[in-house]
């Protein structure tokens, strides 16, 4: 029986008219190794995701999918989880837990397999994949290739019938990718697992594949053995031909009457046979580019290492790069190529040797273009390069670059809705808007399909024609051979050789193109498939890109007009604000700290002034905060859930009880005992209820991502002690996802950050304080008291950080270490804590002032797009 049978599947995304998949029918037999290929955007991922219910996107579906003869909808989730394995593209984000062994067991845990059985299966799979040497490691210590192998292994422990893989190697370097695909071949051969893979590295998979399917514009245009499919493509003159392995391309254009060669060695033999009967014209040596000018950037015997005690990364690197050239640097992983780029960009300084740079501007495009994408659409993204400039001042420049990088159709899209290649071009445009004379690229063709590469090469060509010097680090041998002006080989911290592509590749046996490996015994200078074809007397079909306009008119982005404040509120706000600051100045001067230690009433007659001060602050805040817009109000409609109410009530009831019990039986350390107990009692209901309702995967992920962001965010502000985005993140979570989520993120953030930085008796207090802040933000927002504008949020954030976090942590320090705390001690703790609390509050205010709007926008996007938490 077929593993999968797809009958006339048609699929349309919501609110779209054109179907992504049209009338697709196919069968997948046990033991098949099927490869699904097609140009980007043809619906490959959509099709693969249809094969597992939990991953299938929303939309209108017609036709039937049968799994082992049963309609997929009727196969229960458990069976689907175990029997249909799915490996996604990004190795990193698929890993959920922090230890390798835990990740391997994750699926089996979900299926409720018992401990002994898990142990057996995990051991077996770890041995099959050779994971035992890194079984105990943290997942952060793994390389990209190891991570993807771990993903594969953690699915194979479930013993699936079918393995579906969506571009699993696009983020890996060539050696790791080949390794991964070999393992896949082994699984297919030795375990008999059926495989359906979507892959653009066709050279490596086609020799293993039993079937090759081509999807184009949502239709399955070929479904046959690789050779059969290739025939179909050839008859149709389909553009996918250019993505096929080099020997197949050469064979098809030269029309040999032999069986189609799928590997380099087949191609090599056939070429040898062919050459015995025909004469080959030697490939002419292409003239190497003669640099006319002086080098624009140069390194001279540069040495670099990260720390004084670590090994050297760059060892006497010397290189020169000239204006108007594309210099490609090839080399293995971890040899220091990227480090060299960061030295060239000026981020890292060499400790010996000299770098000369004549360029006014050197910019770098990071390997991951997402690092540069911040805004909510491409247009704003590009405008953000020129902060504070009016649109008309920069429209010409942006228009020109948009046309160059062919972004005109993407301007209104959200950057994260774009495909990898489109994101790449958006990031490139951002970089180019800075007008660089030297452009540094770090593996720009990674994970990008062939069509994008051609467009990308065209952009680079136009840039070099304008005199820009491009230095590109890459693993992509074929791309470099085709388009580079010079190529360099990087090894062991230095550039070993540097030459024009032809002589560079002609001399290598491993670091060279497939065409060269196939033909070098006869045509030593042939580097590209075109070279071989021409030498054999064939004709290369021309591929031209559509002409592009010189400039695109950029329209201004939508302006948001904030509601005007009515005059009376302005006036009242001004009065109360002045009153607040005046009183603040006055009381802080009048405060008699020395009275504190003498046991006097240190607030003295000013007590009432404090009340007035706080009141005026409240009025001030209420006056100038704005009502949120209509859409936002609809989202925050609804009352507090009964759950939240019960939790609050419970904790309120338990606390007096605890105090009474503690005083009665507490003994010498009753204060600490009572306070600990209260803290636990207030937090427990939250945790238990969270546990009790069995949170779904997306909720768990969102909460952990937010906590991790709050903790990880410290890293970037390390230069500013006391500046932590934790409180701000917790408050924003409460506002965006509700009170309960706010509490969980607050408490979890503090707990996990103490796991990393050291637990102490302070942990429960910190968890409690942060949790309450999140809770309060959520409750007040729900009630409509707290508004979604940055002013209200900043004011609220500053207040709660100072009053609640400081208010909990200062007495906590007394309760923790003093046996007989009295009010004076607590007061002293408050007073001594004021500077630290003030900095913390100020930091929270600043974060919320600058971050609240973009951040809430981002959180809303996730909510709206994926319907997360509390719909």
């Amino acid at each position, binding site marked *: 029986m077929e593993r999968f049978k797809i009958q006339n599947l048609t699929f349309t995304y919501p609110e779209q008219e054109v179907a992504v998949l049209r009338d697709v029918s196919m069968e997948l037999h046990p033991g098949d190794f099927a490869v699904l290929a097609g140009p980007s955007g043809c619906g490959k991922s959509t099709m693969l995701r249809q094969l597992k219910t939990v991953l299938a996107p929303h939309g209108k579906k017609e036709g039937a999918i049968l799994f082992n003869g049963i309609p997929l909808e009727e196969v229960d989730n458990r069976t689907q989880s175990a029997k249909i394995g799915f490996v996604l593209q990004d190795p990193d984000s698929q890993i*959920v837990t922090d230890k390798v062994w835990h990740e391997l067991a994750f699926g089996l845990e979900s299926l409720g397999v018992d401990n002994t059985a898990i142990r057996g299966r995990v051991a077996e799979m770890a041995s099959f994949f050779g994971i035992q040497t890194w079984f105990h490691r943290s997942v952060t210590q793994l390389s990209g290739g190891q991570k993807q192998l771990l993903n594969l292994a953690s699915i194979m422990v479930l013993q699936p019938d079918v393995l579906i893989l969506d571009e699993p190697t696009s983020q890996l370097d060539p050696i790791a990718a080949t390794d991964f695909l070999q393992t896949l071949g082994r699984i297919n051969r030795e375990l008999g697992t059926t495989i359906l893979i979507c892959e653009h590295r066709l050279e490596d998979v086609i020799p293993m594949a039993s079937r090759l399917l081509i999807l184009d514009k949502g239709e399955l245009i070929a479904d046959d053995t690789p050779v059969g499919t290739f025939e179909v493509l050839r008859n149709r003159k389909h553009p996918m031909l250019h993505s096929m392995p080099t020997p197949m391309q050469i064979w098809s254009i030269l029309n040999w009457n032999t069986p189609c060669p799928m590997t380099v060695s087949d191609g090599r033999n056939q070429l040898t046979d062919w050459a015995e009967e025909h004469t080959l014209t030697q490939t002419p040596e292409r003239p190497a580019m003669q640099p006319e000018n002086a080098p624009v950037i140069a390194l001279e015997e540069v040495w670099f290492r990260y720390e004084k005690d670590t090994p050297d990364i760059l060892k006497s690197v010397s290189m020169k790069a000239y204006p108007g050239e594309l210099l490609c640097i090839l080399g293995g992983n971890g040899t220091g190529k990227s480090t060299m780029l960061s030295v060239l960009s000026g981020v890292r300084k060499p400790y010996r040797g000299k770098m000369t740079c004549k360029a006014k501007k050197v910019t770098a495009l990071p390997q991951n273009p997402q690092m540069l994408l911040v805004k909510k659409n491409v247009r704003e993204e590009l405008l953000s390069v020129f902060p504070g400039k009016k649109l008309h001042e920069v429209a010409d420049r942006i228009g020109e670059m948009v046309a160059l990088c062919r972004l005109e159709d993407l301007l209104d899209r959200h950057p994260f809705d774009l495909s990898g290649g489109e994101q790449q071009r958006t990031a490139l445009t951002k970089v180019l808007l800075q007008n660089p004379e030297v452009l540094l690229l770090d593996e720009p063709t990674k994970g990008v399909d062939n069509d994008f590469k051609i467009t990308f090469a065209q952009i680079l060509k136009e840039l070099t024609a304008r005199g820009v010097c491009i230095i590109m680090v890459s693993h992509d041998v074929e791309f470099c051979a085709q388009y580079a002006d010079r190529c360099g080989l990087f090894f062991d911290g230095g550039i070993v050789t540097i030459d024009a592509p032809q002589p560079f590749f002609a001399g290598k046996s491993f670091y060279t193109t497939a065409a060269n490996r196939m033909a070098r015994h006869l045509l030593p200078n042939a580097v590209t498939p075109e070279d071989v074809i021409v030498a054999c007397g064939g004709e290369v079909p021309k591929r031209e890109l559509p002409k592009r306009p010189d400039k695109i008119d950029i329209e201004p982005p939508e302006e948001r007009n904030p509601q005007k404040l009515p005059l009376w509120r302005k006036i009242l706000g001004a009065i109360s604000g002045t009153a607040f600051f005046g009183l603040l100045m006055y009381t802080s001067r009048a405060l008699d700290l020395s009275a504190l230690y003498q046991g006097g009433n240190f607030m003295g007659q000013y007590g009432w002034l404090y009340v007035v001060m706080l009141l005026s602050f409240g009025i001030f805040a209420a006056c100038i905060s704005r009502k949120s817009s209509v859409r936002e109000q609809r989202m925050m409609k609804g009352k507090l859930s009964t759950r939240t109410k019960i939790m609050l009530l419970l904790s309120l009831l338990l606390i007096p009880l605890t105090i009474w019990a503690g005083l009665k039986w507490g003994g010498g350390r009753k204060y600490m005992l009572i306070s600990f107990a209260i803290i636990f009692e207030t937090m427990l209901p939250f945790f238990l209820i969270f546990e009790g309702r069995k949170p779904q995967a997306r909720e768990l992920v969102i909460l952990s991502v937010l906590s991790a962001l709050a903790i990880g965010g410290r890293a970037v502000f390390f230069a500013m002690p006391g500046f932590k985005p934790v409180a701000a993140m917790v408050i924003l979570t409460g506002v965006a996802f509700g009170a309960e989520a706010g509490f969980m993120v607050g408490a979890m953030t503090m707990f996990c950050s103490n796991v990393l930085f050291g637990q102490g008796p302070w942990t429960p207090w910190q968890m409690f304080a942060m949790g309450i802040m999140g809770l309060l933000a959520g409750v007040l927002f729900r009630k409509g008291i707290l508004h979604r504008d940055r002013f209200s949020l900043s004011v609220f954030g500053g207040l709660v950080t100072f009053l609640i976090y400081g208010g909990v942590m200062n007495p906590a320090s007394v309760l923790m270490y003093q046996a007989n705390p009295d009010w004076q001690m607590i007061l002293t703790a408050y007073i001594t804590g004021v500077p630290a609390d003030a900095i913390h509050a100020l930091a929270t205010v600043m974060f919320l002032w600058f971050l609240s709007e973009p951040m809430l926008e981002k959180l809303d996007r996730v909510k709206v797009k994926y319907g997360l938490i509390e719909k």
Partner: protein
Amino acid sequence: MKNDAFSGFHPVVNFIFFVAALGMTMFIQQPVYLLISFISGCAYLLYLQGKKGFFRQVGYLVPILIMMAIMNPVFNHEGITVLWYLPNDNPITLEAICFGLASAVMMGASIVWFNCCNTVFTSDKIIYLFGRVIPALSLLISMTLRFVPRFKNFLQSVVRTQQAMHKPENTKERFQQALAAFSATVSWAMEQSIVSADSMKSRGYGGLGRTAFSIYVFEKRDGITLVLLAVLCAGAAIPHLFGLMRWIYYPSLSGELFGPVQIMAYFCYGGMCNLPLIINKMEDRKWNALRSKI
């Protein structure tokens, strides 16, 4: 860090030991108990971290503890044994000095024990212990710990990328750049989260009857250690519960310190606090014996 034999015991044993050590340190104010706890804690931390690590982790404590010890008599004037008077006519008493010292030692000991606990009781042990009782929360912890280093890496590379484009010239620009980097990280992390959720669902998360796998096995030696720990704990705690270890600071220092029962209790408490070190020493000796046979 040294190869600590105690860390190799079952997490339950580790957990109970630290709960006992920390609990007794924080709740029993008897001066000899505090000293025993402080010294044993320091010895164990020294064993775990070596000299360098030890001073790095607790060096900052010394001034704080001294401050605490001095502050108490300055502000607290209870007690009957007046030593001298402050310029503002407040008395400095012997009792207040002793109490200040005891508080300082208590704080020092609990922090030292927390430091030991952080070294021995790693995140996977936390997750293992909580995994049975609160599976969703423990998964939440595990995932958070997984994401933190990942986000940090991304954040740092974003900062580097930005610096390559534009080097910040003053604090304002640095702050703005940091904010932009954080913002970019949030966007990215949000998109990534969806893939993680897909990967969880795809592997059956959310079904009924989830189990918690662990690589820990409860061996015979864990049982023996646990029993030993319980006996020693009882030996140290029971006299306290019966009020035999009562020690009062105010108004005057009083209580019996060195009666036979007290000395017995000290032995039990000392044995308990030093259990990890004793285990380590026994292990070392076993190795030496094995080696000398070869």
